[in-house]
């Protein structure tokens, strides 16, 4: 199944989806050293987002979060791509400076954790491979 959204940042990536209904704050909410979500009570608390296609509704929290994403990219703990329902400034800027392919305006309830996704940030599309 192919879904059409909006291009946020260019590039293509393929990986396993990790999906949450909660917003994500990279600053304080994700550990850039381990790639794990550390926000207490978050749906993904304790889970690693490294190398995954991270699917969540929208970003939240401090604008420093963009720098946290950059740090994860340098540490090799970043997700390979990001899919949002509605992008916010922090995640958008984070994807651009870290060069992480990103697509938004996707109905994320169609996607389940563990599915293999192909994200085309340049076209603004995602494909559920299986």
């Amino acid at each position: 199944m192919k879904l059409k959204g909006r291009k946020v940042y260019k590039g293509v990536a393929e990986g396993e989806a990790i999906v949450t209904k909660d917003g994500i704050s990279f600053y304080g909410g994700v550990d850039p050293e381990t790639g794990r979500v550390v926000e207490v009570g978050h749906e993904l608390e304790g889970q690693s987002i490294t190398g995954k296609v991270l699917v969540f509704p929208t970003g939240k929290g401090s604008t420093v979060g963009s720098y946290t994403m950059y740090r994860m990219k340098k540490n090799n703990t970043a997700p390979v791509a990001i899919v949002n329902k509605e992008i916010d400034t922090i995640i958008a800027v984070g994807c651009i400076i870290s060069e992480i392919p990103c697509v938004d305006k996707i109905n994320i309830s169609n996607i389940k954790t563990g599915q293999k996704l192909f994200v085309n940030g340049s076209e603004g599309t995602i494909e559920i491979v299986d």
Partner: protein
Amino acid sequence: MRLNQEEKDMLEGKNGKATQKSMEILITLGDIFEAENMIEVYGVQIAGVSYDNLGEAGLEFLNEMAEDGKVKVLTTLNPAGMDRENWQVLGIDEEFAINQNRAIDAFAKMGIITTCSCTPYLIGNSPHYGQHIAWAESSAVCYSNSVIGARTNREGGPSALAAALTGRTPNYGYHLDKNRHGQVLVSVNAPVKGTDEFGVLGKIIGDKLVELGKKIPYITGIPSATVEELKSFCASVATYGGTALFHMDGITPEYNKYPKPSDVRFEIIQNEIESARAELIDDGIEIDFVSIGCPHASIHEIANLAKLLEGKKVKKEFWITTARPTKKIADEAGYTKIIEGAGAKFAADTCCVVAPIKGRFKGIMVDSAKACYYGRAKNKFKVKIGSIEQCIEEATR
């Protein structure tokens, strides 16, 4: 989004990598917020300067941008995590100081004026009415939009830097007349005086705006306000309400420009000011730290502090946070000698919100509602708000 030839060249990398990356950031934001074009900005204020907030990742990004990036417009910096000259006296450790200076050096390499202040409008980054700018630092954004009548969105660190390196910002939000109308009519039916009380007022209005899901208040019932009172109000209403713009009847320049809001309104009476003040005083507080200058103290405030402190001795740690240029005027005028003679310390280039002082003190007394918020949330202090005179009384007791 429509781009002119110069902007297209920047996007294609003809002006170097940092400019190209900056244009990518601005175009992406412009597309998200449906901007039709880019506009030129007169000046930029950059936040995300303290190493405490940037971390090694932020610093790495800045160094990458500094490889070939040069600012195209007047650009100044937000407070750093320390006084650049006097950090040892203020108890900042050496490793932090080294890292902080690495960050400031990266900004300087890009041609940014490293003033390190949250009040750029007091020290020469001073746009005029109607001018487009791209500022980060929520209190200065609110001041420039509201009190000066310049136009800026609430930028973050990277988007402000991108504006500085390109001289552009996407044309959306507060740059457009249609988004600057007052949304809520606020009638203040109580006397409000002093930086502390204007901060309390900012908290009441900010909290209420969040509750109502609105952003721009139109405030009536304030007969007069000083620059210092307005700067305190801006910091508070931006902290508690995320407010980037307000209109104040008879005081701010756009108060008569747009139709007054009529469908949503609320009133503020004396009781509410008293109870909001009480919310900014923690039970059982034991004060071991007093700080004035959030936002950075003006020369007028410093002159007043010198008058109040002359011939007295402070018995608690007492910081006056201000911009380096303002401190230099105080040095020349002899205020520094009087203030330091009383045992108080200047902390220029920095402030209690961004310095790495978490847990270092038990209780802080301030004249700023914004400082109360961050004193609690970021630094884990107990807090108490009071007038400048009450702060000095506490410090000298």
